[in-house]
């Protein structure tokens, strides 16, 4: 049973002449780490809004096709019901945190699930430990750094024990070290909990190493879908995806006539290939 399964999913916002998303069919298996990318307006946000019922509950328009999350058809489900299956983390953690202490914030969602308080407390403790913020429980969110705030936002989602987590550019407000750090936390949770991860991201340099799959959307449709090595090619470049800089460098070298077979997506892969040539 796939974690997410879309069949011919289309959506047109009220007042729009053309669909923002058209005939999207895809299936994401449990435990996958998928990057969803594409130019602004490609439909990726629309797709994510369907996953937790924001479309059509909060954004009106015409939906067509089917979407199953955790084998539950989202049609007619409330965002609250769907949040048991799928958790969301947004760009700016400040928008997700509002309590007086980190612990209260992490507990907010899970306490609304109506589970026994003892279990709720256990889950909060576990979520804070899993994201490495157990020492911050008494702090006020505004006392935290951006990276710590984003960890708290992830912990709040994690405590609800969703089987899928969707992160919408979760590092864009963070400095590069905190960004790498957060991506590391996400990858660890994906590995250890088999948490299906859908990461919406433009900055492919820092996230590609962790993903088993990249889906590129363009003009409302799925344009490319495969491993990062397979997807980061000429078509992705034409669509206007910001490929990792080492991938771009190898593309330039191939254009210069070097018969390079590999398509590196990380610095390590690129440096290993170049070192073999320079050392021979």
């Amino acid at each position, binding site marked *: 049973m796939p974690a997410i399964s879309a069949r011919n999913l289309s959506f047109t916002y009220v007042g729009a002449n053309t669909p923002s998303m058209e005939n999207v069919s895809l299936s994401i298996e449990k435990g996958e780490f998928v990057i969803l990318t594409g130019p602004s307006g490609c439909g990726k946000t629309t797709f994510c809004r369907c996953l937790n019922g924001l479309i059509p509950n909060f954004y009106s328009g015409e939906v067509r096709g089917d979407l199953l999350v955790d084998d539950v058809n989202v049609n007619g489900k409330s965002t609250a019901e769907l949040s048991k299956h799928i958790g969301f983390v947004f760009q700016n953690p400040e928008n997700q945190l509002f309590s007086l202490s980190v612990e209260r914030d992490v507990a907010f969602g899970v306490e609304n699930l109506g589970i026994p308080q003892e279990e709720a407390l256990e889950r909060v403790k576990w979520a804070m430990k899993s994201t490495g913020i157990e020492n911050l429980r008494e702090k006020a969110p505004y006392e935290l*750094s951006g990276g710590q705030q984003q960890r708290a936002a992830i912990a709040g989602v994690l405590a609800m024990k969703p089987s899928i987590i969707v992160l919408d550019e979760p590092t864009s407000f963070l400095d590069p070290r905190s960004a*790498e750090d957060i991506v590391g936390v996400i990858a660890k949770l994906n590995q250890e909990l088999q948490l299906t991860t859908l990461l919406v991201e*433009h900055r492919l340099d820092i996230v590609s190493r962790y993903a088993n799959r990249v889906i590129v959307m363009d003009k409302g449709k799925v344009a490319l879908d495969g491993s990062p090595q397979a997807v980061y090619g000429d078509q992705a470049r034409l669509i206007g*995806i910001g490929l990792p800089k080492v991938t771009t460098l190898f593309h330039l070298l191939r254009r210069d006539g070097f018969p390079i077979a590999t398509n590196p997506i990380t610095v390590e892969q690129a440096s290993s290939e170049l070192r073999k040539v320079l050392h021979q």
Partner: protein
Amino acid sequence: MISVNNTSFRYIGASSDVLTNVNLQIKDGEFVAIMGENGSGKTTLVKMFNGLLKPRVGSVMIDGTDTREKSVAQLSRDVGLIFQNPDHQLFAETVSEELSFSLRNFGFNEEVVKRRVTNILTALDLEKYVDSSPFVLSGGERKRVALAAILVWDPKHIIMDEPTIGQDYLQKDRLRNFIVQLISQGKTIVIVTHDVEFVAECKPRVVLLSKGTVIADDAATKILTNDELLAQASLVRPQIAELMHQLPISGKTLDIIDAYAAREFLVPKLREAVQTSGHWR
């Protein structure tokens, strides 16, 4: 010329300075990136350029005038500050209203207002939204509207706080070209950013802040390859700089931070290696 002299600043009620003894001169037509960790004082510093904040100690001079002698409205005519969060700036019901507002306040006639608004919307690929509400646009588009709303009155110095956040690759590319165009018109451009890849592509002068102090002020190629400085400011090497660092090549690899420079450097070395061995590897 933007001139910051022995300037310190602390917020009312705070127990310590956000900025400590900052000295910085930015000449007309320069392109400068202010980088540093979250909370290093970057945004506080640029808020002094248009007088939103006034120094507690020292002075900030814009084209020879102390910011304390002018109102924000007066300073804004010459110093355009684009906030990180466009929602702190946007208020009008349509994009064209948003852009016209300041021009009318500055006393331009309607014909000039209309022409300027049209020109800037075209330049920023926003003309199709002229009658839209800024609030139905995507985050990236709202950011461009906020930029347009400042550029439209043609300030001499343009300050952008985190302009690349939420922008896709094509928009970043467009922003870069736009900055180049503005510099060639003699504008001063200051960006506050922690986007090392964007800086590696644009190669501005970099002013590095950490804990309220300027810890370095040098070319992007020098700063983005200096591990000690990068660690202090919670930055990382750009990908290409890291790659060059890992290669067993001595010499001038240290200054290479973008793919095109790396290619120029590597091609002869690789040709030589391939020629000697007769094959790629």
